[in-house]
């Protein structure tokens, strides 16, 4: 319904139903009554006309003799009988063929006499019985008086139709009364129907319109058993599911006003829905994330989800309850779009991850402690092996074996470092900075670190970093480790005379590629790359002595920078690792 008609046509279903049914009744009944009256009128008037015509013909027949014998008294008597007392013939007369009155009888003053013009017009026509005029209450008929084929005069009858008129009026009145009654009954029925439909519906509306204000513990009453009841039942089930979900659910509009706050949300935060609904996040909640207390909506995950138009998750938010207990909250916020695709609200699902975080922290601490404890004996092994090499002189085998002990100690150290780093990154304990960093010095340092090993394996190192590359946004130490690991891998899994090249250029961000001419990987190996402790299994790789954690670390660090590691590899020809870092302004 267009807006132009809104003011005429009611919006509410109740009014639509009542006005609609009343209008339909009114129109149908009016048409019906009009048709009925019209038919009745035709029937009654037909009958009256036939009667008057018959009376005129009767008068014509009975007037032949008196007219021929000029028996005016007889004629008068005939007219008197006709007009006498029935009242349905108030006027009768007999004229000669030219319309001159021979005898005339009239009941009192009543009856409208025929005007002369009609009489003249009638007698000018053919001698045939017919109706000559119709008045409001009278019908006039004329019949020729014929004596053996000779036209000797006219018989005129004025018939009264008042009775028929009265009857018609009666029918019309009755019809109107029925119309009124039908409209009344119809409207009453419509109102009853509207109520029957709309009462449960209004209960339901009360539920949905103020979905958040109504206590979810109180389910919608399902009273009706009809279709509305079914809808209500489904709605109630839907709400029961929403409120029964074990995860906290919070729906906010785009400015952070809470529209819905389910039971689990109440239980987790200990803040009841009536307090939260209508409040702007964080409202009464005491939230602390990695950057400190969350004081306004702009700092929340929800805002980020609304702005980015994508689901955003966080695991690092703490919530302090009124009683002082502190929880870790894991939350995912996703935008809700309208049919046009515009973000109009945000739904967030959150839960208490305190226990998981505790376990995670314990795991990290355990890994950290174990690593620490492992280093001490390793220090001894390495130090003694190294010192022994100085002491044993030129005994080649002993030198060789001691070298192996020392190298394995170094490798074990690297493994411990990688495990420790990975564990810290995974647990979110490493906070990557967001700084504006120039890439070239990091590349130079990675090359510098790999230089001794590269020289030893006869692998050439090259860089091709576009000059004037804008700084990227991220963590210098993290990206340094990524580059160092990738270059180190390139050297490790290479062949004598091969090369490793680091290239960087600007293309949708700072695009970095580390390419080697090494042994390459099979498609299956590329797929499995990044699995913990996965290494391309061959004698060559075993000789290379990696930990199998390097790429995992690279992946984790890049992920924290919002980047993805792309791998392209051909077995026997080499591999290329690529990623794109966001270009960042500011400091």
């Amino acid at each position, binding site marked *: 319904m267009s807006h132009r008609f809104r003011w005429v046509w009611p919006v509410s279903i109740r009014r639509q139903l009542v006005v609609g049914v009343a209008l339909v009744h009114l129109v149908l009944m009016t048409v019906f009554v009009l048709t009925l009256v019209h038919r009745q009128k035709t029937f009654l008037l037909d009958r009256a006309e036939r009667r008057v015509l018959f009376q005129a013909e009767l008068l014509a027949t009975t007037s032949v003799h008196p007219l021929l014998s000029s028996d005016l008294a007889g004629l008068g008597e005939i007219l008197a009988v006709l007009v006498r007392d029935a009242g349905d013939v108030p006027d009768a007369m007999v004229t000669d063929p030219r319309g001159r009155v021979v005898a005339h009888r009239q009941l009192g003053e009543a009856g409208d006499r025929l005007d002369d013009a009609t009489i003249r017009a009638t007698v000018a026509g053919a001698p045939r019985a017919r109706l000559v005029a119709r008045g409001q209450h009278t019908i006039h008929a004329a019949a020729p008086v014929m004596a053996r084929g000779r036209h000797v005069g006219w018989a005129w009858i004025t018939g009264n139709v008042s009775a028929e008129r009265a009857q018609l009026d009666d029918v019309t009145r009755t019809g109107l009364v029925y119309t009124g009654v039908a409209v009344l009954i119809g409207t009453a029925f419509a109102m009853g129907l509207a109520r029957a439909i709309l009462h449960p519906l209004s209960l339901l509306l009360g539920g949905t319109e103020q979905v958040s204000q109504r206590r979810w513990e109180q389910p919608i009453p399902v009273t009706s058993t009809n279709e509305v009841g079914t809808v209500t039942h489904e709605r109630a089930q839907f709400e029961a599911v929403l409120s029964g979900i074990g995860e906290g659910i919070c729906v906010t509009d785009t400015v952070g006003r809470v529209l819905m706050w389910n039971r689990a949300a109440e239980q987790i935060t200990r803040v009841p829905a009536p307090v939260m609904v209508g409040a702007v996040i964080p409202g009464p909640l005491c939230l602390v994330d990695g950057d400190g207390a969350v004081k306004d909506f702009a700092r929340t995950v929800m805002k980020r989800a609304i702005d980015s138009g994508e689901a955003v998750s966080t695991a690092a938010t703490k919530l302090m309850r009124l009683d002082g207990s502190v929880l870790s909250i894991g939350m995912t916020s996703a935008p809700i779009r309208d049919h046009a695709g515009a973000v109009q609200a945000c739904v967030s699902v959150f839960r208490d991850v305190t226990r998981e975080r505790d376990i995670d922290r314990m795991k990290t601490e355990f890994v950290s402690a174990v690593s*620490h404890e492992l*280093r*001490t004996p390793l*220090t*001894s092994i390495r*130090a003694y092996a190294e*010192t022994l090499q100085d002491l044993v002189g030129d005994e080649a085998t002993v030198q060789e074996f001691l070298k192996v002990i020392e190298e394995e*100690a*170094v490798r074990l150290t690297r493994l411990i*470092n990688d495990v420790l780093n990975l564990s810290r990154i995974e647990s979110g304990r490493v906070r990557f900075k967001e700084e504006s960093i120039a890439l070239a010095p990091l590349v130079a340092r990675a090359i510098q670190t790999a230089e001794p090993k590269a020289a030893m394996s006869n692998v050439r190192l090259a860089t091709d970093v576009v000059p004037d590359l804008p700084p990227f946004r991220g963590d210098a130490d993290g990206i340094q480790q990524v580059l160092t690991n990738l270059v180190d891998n390139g050297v490790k899994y290479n062949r004598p005379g091969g090369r490793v090249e680091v290239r960087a250029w600007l293309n949708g961000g700072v695009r970095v590629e580390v390419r080697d001419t090494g042994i390459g990987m099979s498609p299956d190996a590329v797929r499995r790359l990044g699995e913990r402790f996965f290494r391309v299994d061959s004698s060559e790789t075993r000789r290379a002595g990696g930990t199998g954690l390097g790429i995992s670390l690279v992946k984790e660090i890049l992920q924290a920078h919002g980047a993805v590691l792309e791998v392209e590899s051909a077995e026997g020809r080499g591999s290329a690792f690529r990623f794109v870092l966001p270009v960042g302004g500011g400091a």
Partner: protein
Amino acid sequence: MKRILIADDESHIRRILEFNLKRAGYEVLATEDGRAALALALSARPDLVILDVSMPELTGLDVCRRLKADATLEATPVFLLTARGQESDAEAGRVAGADQFFTKPFSPKQLVEQVRQAVGEP
């Protein structure tokens, strides 16, 4: 002769460091806890101090801080050894005024080399 003070609660590590430094020609004093290290440093006036970070009584960081706060010892180079090798430790070492920072396991040869650079030939 240049005198080096070593403090580490791990006897094996103390032993191998002592061995390498003595072999290089330095005089070595070794102790296993922080408090003794501090006392020895004040009494024996070493030319360089090597401290393990995690020691009973006083940590290497505490000892380093106190040495650097002492007017007569503040110029004495201090090397720290740590088993954690995390940035926060290195940062704490810098704040405490340490001159060098070694993450375990380290190469004794390199350590001796650094000692030689810091205090010169024995």
